[in-house]
């Protein structure tokens, strides 16, 4: 904490900043700060933090767990308040300095890019950790942790991957704008730590801005499809690593239907979406059938099908003539020109951008967002009701929301909201993803077929004994899984995400692999997949900023995502009772027994 910079009141685009630590400032490029900026309290706050940490260490020495926990709660609360105070003081100082500069006749504010930095955040994390520790000190604390293990493993895994990512930046990242030789060790450490903090601030920055949200949701759409595909297969006890191939086939099918099927939009659009599902289902189902019929491992086969799909794509897009043993086959798919891309989709087969859905005829309407929120909220909050009623009520709420939302006056077309939405490529495929999410959720958890699917995944032998046709379940699971992955193609080809409504060779099929991380992080539940998909969507969006501003490859995001997979496979390095359901149950039973014993004692005494 003493080494890390606490705040960066001024930052240039390339990442160079004026760093303030409790004892000194680090200013490698001689940036100028306004004289009116008052941050003299930082050194004093550091001593308060040091005192807090000392007090916390003393609190741990308390023999009685109850008073220990009470002390830790109090110290944690003080810490969080202290962090909030720091933030308020910092923002006030920067604002008043800016106001003073404007009053002094400056044409624009001198401090536009400013942030809290690692030292301040560390205090916050420390306080939060104290709060958590306080809860764990109480009787039954371990059982409390274990009860939330569904969230604990993904969260800890994410933290671990961020930590390793930070190490990578530490080693591979270059401190922007300075030659290393002229720095003292202390400055070098501060600059490196600042580089790490700034990188992660950039990675998560889309959360703070409206345009960041829209871009992240745009990136989330294919991740939801890919994540659902993997999660669905996992639920059935299968590992579908064939997302890339299934997306490719889905894209090819969409392209064929979208380019060549004439007809009105209400026929062509649904048919082309179905074609995407069909293409993916074909590729996934093939692997499923090979497993069911011949026992061929689906992991190896889906991987092989990924490579074959890449060849199929090349076959369609590389050239309009393909030669077989001296005969020439003429294909109509490739567009004229050097680039390997298909003809443009008919307008009827294009999925409109969200801006066109939300502002039809040039007038922004709240109808769809309100309908969405109302429908989803109703669906997810009516946990107790049976599925039919949930769907019915959710649908009703959505319709009602649509009607009421239409009445709310929308912002004018010149507003930030509309501008940011128009700039993002968020399209109708996002709504499709949410719909599919609910359908999968419904099927898996509320229907007989879904129950059998999960049974086959959990205990295949037992399921077979109970009369479930395993072979058919395997084929069906891979068909559906492939179809879900294939639907991601609607986002890319029909949604105009790749700047054109065409199938291109550069279609980013690797998102099929990211689906593995999304499914694992989301614990194979639909809500989890949505949340994990959004998290990775944010990271992917932030990764663009990262490479633009700091020159750190956006592949850092890929690395972090794969580290999440690894960390989840490791159970987040948490003790076994977090990952092993039997041991978890044991811990909870022990806690309950202990609780019962204690109440009995109290009653007796």
């Amino acid at each position, binding site marked *: 904490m003493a080494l890390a910079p606490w705040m960066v009141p001024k930052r240039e685009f390339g990442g160079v900043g004026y760093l303030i630590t409790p004892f000194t400032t680090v200013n490698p490029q001689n940036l100028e700060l306004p004289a009116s900026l008052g941050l003299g309290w930082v050194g004093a706050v550091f001593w308060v933090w040091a005192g807090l940490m000392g007090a916390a260490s003393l609190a741990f020495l308390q023999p009685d767990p109850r008073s220990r926990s009470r002390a830790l709660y109090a110290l944690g609360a003080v810490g969080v308040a202290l962090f909030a105070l720091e933030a308020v003081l910092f923002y006030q100082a920067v604002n008043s300095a800016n106001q003073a500069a404007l009053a002094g006749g400056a044409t624009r504010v001198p401090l536009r890019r400013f942030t809290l930095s690692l030292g301040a955040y560390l205090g916050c994390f420390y306080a939060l950790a104290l709060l958590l520790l306080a809860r764990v000190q109480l009787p039954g604390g371990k059982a409390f942790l274990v009860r939330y293990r569904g969230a604990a493993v993904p969260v800890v895994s994410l933290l671990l991957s961020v930590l390793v990512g930070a190490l*990578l930046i530490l080693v*591979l990242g270059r401190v922007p704008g300075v030659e290393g030789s002229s720095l003292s060790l202390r400055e070098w450490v501060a600059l490196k730590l600042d580089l790490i903090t700034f990188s992660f601030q950039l990675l998560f920055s889309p959360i703070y801005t409206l345009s960041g949200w829209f871009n992240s949701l745009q990136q989330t759409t294919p991740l939801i499809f890919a994540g659902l595909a993997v999660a669905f297969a996992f639920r059935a006890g299968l*590992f579908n*690593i064939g997302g890339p191939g299934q997306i490719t086939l889905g894209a090819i099918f969409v392209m064929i239907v979208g380019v060549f099927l004439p007809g009105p939009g209400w026929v062509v659009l649904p048919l082309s979406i179905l074609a995407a599902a069909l293409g993916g289902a074909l590729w996934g189902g093939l692997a499923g059938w*090979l497993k069911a019929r*011949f*026992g*061929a*491992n689906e*992991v*190896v*086969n889906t*991987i*092989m*099908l990924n*490579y*074959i799909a890449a*060849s*199929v*794509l*090349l*076959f369609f897009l*590389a*050239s309009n003539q*393909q*030669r*077989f*043993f*001296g005969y020439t*086959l003429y294909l109509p798919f490739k567009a004229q020109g050097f680039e390997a891309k298909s003809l443009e989709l008919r307008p009827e087969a294009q999925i409109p951008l969200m801006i066109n859905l939300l502002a039809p005829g040039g007038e922004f309407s709240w109808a769809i967002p309100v309908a969405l929120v109302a429908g989803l909220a109703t669906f997810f909050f009516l946990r107790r009701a049976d599925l039919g009623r949930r769907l019915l009520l959710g649908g009703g709420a959505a319709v009602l929301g649509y009607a009421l939302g239409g009445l709310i006056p929308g912002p004018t077309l010149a507003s930030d909201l509309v501008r940011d939405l128009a700039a993002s490529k968020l399209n109708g495929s996002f709504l499709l993803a949410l719909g599919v999410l609910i359908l999968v959720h419904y099927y898996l958890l509320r229907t007989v077929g879904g129950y059998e699917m999960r049974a086959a995944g959990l205990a295949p032998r037992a399921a077979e004994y109970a009369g479930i046709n395993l072979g058919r379940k395997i084929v069906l699971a891979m068909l559906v899984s492939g179809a879900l992955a294939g639907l991601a193609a609607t986002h890319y080809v029909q949604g105009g995400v790749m700047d054109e409504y065409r199938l291109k060779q550069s279609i980013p099929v*690797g998102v099929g*692999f990211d689906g*593995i*991380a999304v499914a*694992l992080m989301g614990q194979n539940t639909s809500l989890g997949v949505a949340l994990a998909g959004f998290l990775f969507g944010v990271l992917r969006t932030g990764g663009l900023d990262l490479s633009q501003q700091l*020159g*750190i*490859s956006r*592949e*850092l*995001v*890929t*690395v972090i*995502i*794969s*580290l999440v*997979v*690894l960390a*989840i*496979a*490791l*159970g987040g*390095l948490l003790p076994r009772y977090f990952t092993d359901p039997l041991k978890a149950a044991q811990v909870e039973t022990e806690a309950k027994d202990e609780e019962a014993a204690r109440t009995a004692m109290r009653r007796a005494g």
Partner: protein
Amino acid sequence: MNEIFTLALLFSTLRQTTPILLTALGGLFSERSGVVNIGLEGIMLFGALAAAVVTQRLEVPFLASDPNAQIWWIPWVGLLAGAAVGGLVAWVHALASIKYKADQIISGTAINLLALGAPSLVLEYYYDNSTSSQEVVNRLPLISVGPENLSPLVFLAFLLVPVIWWVLFKTPWGLRLRAVGEHPEAAETMGVNVIRTRYVAVVISGLLAGIAGAYLSIGFLNQFVKGMSAGLGFIALAALIVGKWHPIGVLGSTLLFGFASALSIQLTGRNILPVPVVQAIPFILTMLVLVGFIGRSRPPAAVGKPYDK
């Protein structure tokens, strides 16, 4: 047709077989000890990356005075670096699947995903280029055989087949290794250290896959290119299944895939089949052979199952 089936095709087959064979032999150790290593593809990429980068960085001081300087030991250090990094990555997989009892398929997949992203960071750091390394001048030397040249690693790979056969089936350690893969509880009762045996086997698989990767980047080509293993690691796994987890069988099946790859190279640009179809041949063949051989091929009984004392 005669112009396709030439001596050149034979040599090409040997060259194409080498990385698959090395990797499959590595996978043989790992799976015989009861650990699935689907991360071999990624380990290969890491090995290739390490070999290319280390070789290139080592030769930088020598190339300043003579841009074509040939220093005999540099590529061998690169090869060792590739093997070492392969072993290290495999050790991570071993840690996950043995110590933390992780799902071995997921852990291996994580390594493969990592190999898609991590090389870009390293390449950007050294070369400001996220897709390939600079070319190395000091490639692994070649040995001329008749009309063509072959890398010494080709000989190493084929020589390893009888050696590994002997180690697995004629030495006490090989017996223990196989016992650990078939019935770890029984092996433990007989005094075999299951955990250690598995660690060693998985790390060996990483060393061999790392060497295979080094063969790709500084033996076959002279630079690292993103995604250069192009599925060879997965084909090696399939070859392992087809070869029934036996060194001789693995030799046969990898020769088959090596031949398919060599054939697809020979067919490219001959207007007999479209290029995309030709490129897909090895993968289609893999699937067909996998389907055809299943049922007759029985994996080690304990493969994929974490060992719980």
